[in-house]
């Protein structure tokens, strides 16, 4: 089982992607999708330096919903701050956040979330992965933001990947 399907999640996403990109899903397309879904992860195994293990799907689902909500909310906040920038310049600042997350894939996911949410940009990661430098667009209460960042994004990622 492990040899045929080294990455079940990747296989499942490839299968779904193939069917979505090649409508309408007839029997032939389902067959090709199955072949792609089985063959590509096997062929790509030498390219993957380490196994990714997703531990708690429910935490992952909750994280995705929380990130979606934060993206919409901060879209609104950043847009408003941009339009008001003449009267009230945004209080932009660099913030150094100490990290407890060490897993490489978890850090990659954290970087994707940080850049995806408007108003925060991932600027630099320390060599030993002990801290990250973020640039915040318009945050008045920095300690509250750090608390939110660690409890909403970092801790779920630690539960999922470590």
């Amino acid at each position, binding site marked *: 089982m492990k040899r045929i399907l080294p990455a079940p999640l990747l296989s499942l996403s490839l299968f779904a*992607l193939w069917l*979505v*990109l090649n*409508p*309408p899903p007839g029997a032939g397309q389902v067959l090709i999708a199955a072949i792609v879904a089985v063959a590509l992860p096997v062929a790509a195994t030498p390219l993957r330096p380490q196994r990714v293990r997703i531990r708690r799907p429910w935490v992952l689902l909750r994280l995705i919903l929380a990130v979606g909500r934060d*993206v*919409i909310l901060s*879209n609104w906040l*950043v*847009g408003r701050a*941009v*339009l008001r*920038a*003449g009267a009230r*310049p*945004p209080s*932009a600042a*660099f913030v*150094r956040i100490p990290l407890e997350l060490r897993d490489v894939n978890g850090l990659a996911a954290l*970087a*994707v979330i*940080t*850049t*995806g*949410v*408007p*108003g925060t*940009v*991932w*600027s*630099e*990661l*320390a*060599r*030993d992965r002990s*801290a*990250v*430098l973020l*640039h915040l*667009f318009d945050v008045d209460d920095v300690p509250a933001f750090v608390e939110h960042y660690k409890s909403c994004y970092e801790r779920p990622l630690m539960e999922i990947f470590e």
Partner: protein
Amino acid sequence: MWVEAAVATLLVASGLATLVAAIGLVRLTSFFQRMHPPALASTFGAWAVAAASIVYFSALESRPVLHAWVIPIVLAITLPVTTVLIARAALFRKRQRGGDVPPPLHES
């Protein structure tokens, strides 16, 4: 009818988000502030257009046509790479010029 209203609303919302992002790109005063507005276009702007495309083509062909959701996913995977690279390049060059930015993390 409601399909067209939904598609029109989503499209105009995406256009406005992109416009606000461009205004920010021109108006804000420092480079690191200007790094933030483009995220409006690549998150909400892209989501809204993709949703409009899905709704419109699904109604047109009266079956689910979902291929547009690939666009937000591709953007979500590729944009962090370019954004982080641009931010690091900017930090590197500002430090070389002796600008007002924090020192490298691994030395502190």
